């Protein structure tokens, strides 16, 4: 991923993750964990857009929820979910699908995130539900930290 860096105004989302402000060299990036970082992961359009585009890819895929969620989890977390995790994700997907079906406006709004071209043929409810699941997985501790 590339971004523009203006010399005096570094990208704010990167600063929240302690990117160097480039006025002095930084040998080691300090380890931090702040609520502001959580806010970036939860609300930055970049993360939402990534979730939406990945969701569109998997909604177009006609395999079962279980198989798809397993693949999504592996793509982001780099391992397969265990059965407990998979059950939790499946139940959450069912619930979100119902919620978005009840409230199509919310679904339509949610999938507007980002500038990447939208796949207009796909079912909006389904895309929103998958997007929600993917966004959740992006926000797991393990997605940002490797053990």
């Amino acid at each position, binding site marked *: 991923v590339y971004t523009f860096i203006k010399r005096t105004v570094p990208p704010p989302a990167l600063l*929240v993750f302690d990117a160097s402000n480039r006025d*002095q060299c930084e040998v080691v990036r*300090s380890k*931090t964990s702040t609520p502001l970082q959580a806010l970036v992961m*939860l609300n930055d359009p970049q993360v939402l857009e990534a979730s939406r585009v990945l969701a569109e890819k998997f909604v177009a895929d006609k395999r079962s929820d279980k198989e798809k969620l397993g693949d999504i989890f592996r793509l982001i977390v780099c391992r397969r979910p265990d059965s407990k995790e998979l059950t939790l994700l499946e139940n959450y997907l069912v*619930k979100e699908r119902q919620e978005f079906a009840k409230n199509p406006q*919310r679904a339509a709004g949610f999938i507007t995130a980002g500038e990447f071209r939208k796949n207009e043929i796909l079912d909006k409810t389904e895309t929103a539900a998958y997007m929600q699941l993917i966004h*959740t997985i992006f926000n797991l501790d393990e997605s940002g930290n490797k053990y």
Partner: protein
Amino acid sequence: MQNDLNKYRMNVSRRKFLTGAGLGLGTIGLGSLLVPGIFNKGGADENALPLGLPHFAPKAKRVIYLFQNGAPSQLESFDYKPLLTKMQGKDLPAEIRMGQRLTGMTSNYTKFPLVGSKFAFSQHGQAGAWISELFPNIAKIADDICIVKTVHTDAINHDPALTFFQTGAQQGNRPSMGSWLSYGLGSENKNLPSFCVLLSKGKGNGQGVYSKLWSNGFLDSSHQGVVFSSGEDPVLYLKNPDGQDKLSRRSMLDHIGQLNEMAYEQFGDPEIAKKIQQYEMAYRMQTAVPELTDITREPDHIIRLYGADALVPGSFAANCLLARKLSESGVRFVQLYHQGWDQHGNLVGEMPMQAKDVDRASAGLITDLKQRGLLDETLVIWGGEFGRTNYSQGMITKDNYGRDHHPRCFSIWMAGGGIKPGIVYGETDEFGYNIVKDPVSVHDLHATLLHLLGLNHEQLTYKHLGRRYRLTDIEGQLIEGLMA
């Protein structure tokens, strides 16, 4: 081995705690609020006091630190030295300098021409404090503040001096003052971080600030300073995206929490629990922060108190107003930095601009706190990392001069929170070079500050790498004369 066992035991009890908390993850915050040390990796010390409770009755509950970054000259602000004007251009006598080390910038000087303040001084308040014309508003609150003319430091360059002031050590990697307080006293408001940092920049010659200054060091990462942005929105990404509301977010966070707990069971990394806490804090901040940072709700007479700049996001005045609001809401330590106070040259040009940036808002903050009845429980500190030399760096011209770094004495002022108001503490010699009475070291200042907050600086410790660390390291004396 014993340590590993202990760690495992700590984790087991914490896991039980996490599971017990179930969906109501807010209680996790409460647990660590009562005993913040309980989850600390390797730092568990059964003899340690139950943190989160002060050692004795505190005078102050909160701190607002108005750090004047770059080191404002004491000789043009609070330490009046008419002798320097009389001896203008004469060499600083060697018996006064007494071999004081110099910075790299003046170490090749053979002559040190004394220079007096270009700005007039007059006396203010019951103690007759000398305050320069650059700070007319601070002069008006002379009876509310305590000017300390005899602070001294070990460091002579900005970064180590700043780091020393913030962490009690020059090298970095130690916890910042705000982190120590967050660790020692916990939070007063679960919707906001207990240590917030606000940055602003003046037009004068500036020096950088770095995240290590508000680092939690070896303390738990929940104690680190949270930097607010200097733009229109002090906290970025507060708004839920389209198609998300409070309910759907709650559900999302619950699912993230449950999945993180599963990961925790597998990996046992305590930072995962911290992550859960930080997500919960983020969720609560989404509601709390917009209300707090909305200055349009502040009445005109309050804005006037801080000056028109209070409406300019990221200005020192706006940050002072925000600091009051944060502090009022229970943020334990609000750290401001105003950059631009490094007047090696063009002091006469730059210092009035810098002073104008901060004079009205600093005084306005004190007045505002006072009229709200908050000054008694809020300790406000104003000052830089060291002082400036009584001799000029570079040529003294008809209208201008500069001053180099001076660690042996400099002036700061404090107000509220158990500080004796309306006094001037300590005396420097006629040259404004050495302390002749009542020195106050940075460690002394830290010890006194912690005392006012109800903490014994010798007991607020954290065991790390085999020894107990304190903010005051192995030094620090209470300065009784500063306390009401």
